[in-house]
């Protein structure tokens, strides 16, 4: 098997006495879209800067296309494009000029794709950068990045400032690039975007990886939420491994009881049986969402 696109293990970066990254691990294979998540200040942008060879790792191992991103930055950057979290462009140039300036170094810009993306993102390339809104500056960076024939796209909160319509265009474009075989490292706070685009996820906190895996795996770790309405006395559910169990009278004043709980997905089948047998009158089952998992990861005390 060939080298992974990106392989980070035990990455440490210190700024003076401050440890911004403290043993971070991350792996990205070709054709993979990995969500890169973490609360503000967790070290996402710092990690991306190390990956891009702008700052030097203080410890640990980073391999980009099997090579050291600090020493081989220039060569490696012919294979990737980057959309920074805070897009800064040259105020005197037009958006179109910025795209070409960025496209001139790095992976080759596909002219047909450039024209197509300008059109799809509804961007006016003749405007001066200083006259663009934040969302339009973001579009310039996105067109410059996505119009290139790159093996890796490094995207730092790429949809910040985009309207929902443009977010949709962004998702389509990324999906197209991935179907061409490119890998994507997507740092984002928009969980629906991560769920829609990413096959795998790495969650970091305080400069350290706290959870990594496929979205399906992570979903497996999350619990299904069940809300059931049964007439009369609810069945005994103590023998099951339920969480957050709550039983309350139904809100319409009837004689029934409303039961809510969360349960591991593989237990669902067994739990539902006694409820059905008890004459189930209403049932809502919400599949596990990453939101809850993320929130609990963001929130947990230091590991």
């Amino acid at each position, binding site marked *: 098997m060939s080298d992974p696109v990106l392989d980070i293990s035990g990455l440490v970066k210190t700024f003076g006495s401050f440890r911004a990254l403290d043993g971070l691990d991350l792996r990205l294979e070709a054709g993979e879209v990995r969500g890169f998540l973490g609360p503000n200040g967790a070290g996402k942008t710092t990690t991306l800067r190390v990956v891009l060879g*702008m700052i030097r790792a203080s410890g640990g191992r980073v391999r980009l296309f099997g090579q050291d991103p600090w020493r081989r930055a220039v060569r490696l950057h012919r294979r990737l494009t980057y959309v920074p979290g805070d897009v800064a462009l040259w105020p005197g140039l037009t958006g179109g000029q910025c795209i070409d300036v960025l496209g001139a170094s790095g992976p080759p810009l596909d002219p047909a794709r450039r024209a197509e993306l300008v059109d799809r993102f509804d961007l006016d390339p003749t405007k001066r950068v200083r006259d663009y809104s934040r969302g339009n500056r973001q579009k310039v960076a996105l067109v410059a990045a996505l119009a290139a024939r790159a093996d890796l796209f490094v995207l730092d909160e790429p949809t910040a400032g985009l309207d929902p319509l443009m977010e949709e265009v962004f998702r389509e474009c990324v999906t197209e690039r991935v179907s061409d075989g490119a890998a994507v490292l997507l740092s984002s706070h928009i969980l629906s975007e991560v769920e829609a685009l990413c096959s795998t996820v790495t969650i970091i906190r305080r400069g350290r990886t706290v959870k990594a895996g496929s979205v399906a795996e992570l979903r497996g770790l999350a619990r299904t939420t069940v809300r059931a309405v049964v007439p009369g006395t609810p069945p005994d559910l103590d023998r099951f491994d339920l969480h957050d169990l709550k039983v309350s009278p139904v809100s319409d004043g009837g004689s029934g009881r409303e039961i809510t709980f969360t349960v591991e997905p593989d237990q669902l089948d067994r739990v539902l049986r006694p409820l059905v047998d008890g004459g189930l009158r209403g049932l809502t089952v919400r599949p596990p969402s990453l939101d809850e998992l993320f929130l609990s990861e963001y929130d947990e005390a230091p590991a």
Partner: protein
Amino acid sequence: MTGRTGDGLGTVLRLQLRTGWKALVAWVGGIVGTYAATVAAIDTTYGTTEQLATYEATVGSDPTMAAINGTPYGADTLGGVAANEFGFIAAIAVPLMGLLLVARSTRAAEENGLLELLRSRAIGSRAPWVAALLVTASALLLVGLGMVVSLTAYGVDLADAVLYGASVTALGFVFAGLATLAGQLLRRSAGVIAVGVVVLGVAYVFRAIGDVEDNGWKWLSPLAWQQETRPFTDDPRVWPLLLALGAATTLGALGLALVGRRDLGSAMVTSRPGPASAGRFLTTGPGLALRRHGATLVAWLVGAALVGAMMGAFTDDIADVVAANPELTEMFSAGVVGDPTSWYVSFTLVLVMLMAFGASAQVLARVRREETHGRLEAVLALSVRRTTWLGTHAAVAVLGGALVALAGGAGLAATTARTTGDDAGALVATVQYLPAVVVVAALGVALLGLLPRALALMWVAIAYIAVVETLGETLSMPDAALEVSPLHAIGRLPTEDPTGGAVTVVGAVAVALLIAGLAGFRHRDVPR
């Protein structure tokens, strides 16, 4: 207009003081310190009435001095000699102080979005401008006060000292007012500063024409309004002060009136659409670098050529005045300072070189902004070598500075050739001074690579060279301190031949600094 546009003044004032105090201390301390040292040095050198009379007899009627420092009124008193010796520095530093302090805390803040956040609070549109004017005016008053204290400490009459201090402060006010008005008309702080510098250049030349030819042109120049108060003569005048204060008030009030009439972030001069794609040249490293710095360099180039040509145009008059004055002819023929025209040419060359340094420094300051504003990240994420990137910009700074110097030298040579009979003397001297341009730019590159946050030291170095070249001898600075200035090390051109050893040393230092800067940039974190 309602009073509401000034709401939040206290908040903005505190913020500007909190974020800008270093610059305020540097300006006030730098100008007052240099002035106090000048007064002290003159008190030592010209301690007696007889010595002062000698100064009056020679320098007092020297037209080269009149062109450079202004008519030396009252040159038989300590205050008058100090005003004359300090004339050049005061004419450059004080207007720049007024201009930069206002532009930096207003237009620059508006440009990078800071004012938008501030204005979303209960802060009126005029508050930032009024605050900037108050802070700048206070700083200028401190400069004036410092001068009064320096003068009275050496026994100068209080009323004379106050008139002088007030005239210098009022000169600063004029340029602070100009920045306020230009800040409404132009969108970028760089443009505001450029307009101010051009006005200053024109004012300097008009003042010089007026002083050499003794005509009314000078009354168009705020620099003359300062000097024509004649504080140390028997006939001190207050009314030129009123000209300055009136102009300052008019400019400032116009500016403040316009603030209330425009949108935040907008300007009276707006931008047009441009090309939808970049040409081939723009997508290259040098192309983008030239695009970033081109306008700045062209402005400096034209400015230097004009200053060289216009200052050079007086050499005829200067030669005539010297020829008509036996004492001066004797002084110059004694050979201490060479013949008057070449002495004058050499001083104008220093002026041209300072402009070249300024051009290089402005290029490098903008290079630093590429990093602090986040654009460098986008570039380094491309397949661009760090050394190539910084090297390209360094080359633009060095070559740009050199071209500015050559433009000034050519302008000077073209207009002095008739008087000196030497077609290319000034231009040859400029070429011989070029290692100094390289070394100043190299210092900036070294700072960018090793201590990027201390890049402002580059401006300190240029200010130091200006002080050495204009006041070094007056201040009786030790040789070692003088030799630090690359211009001084190379020698007074074209009066003297360049010191060969010094040229080698300056060149070697420049190369070492460039290498250190590029190596440091390769190995440091970006952004830092």
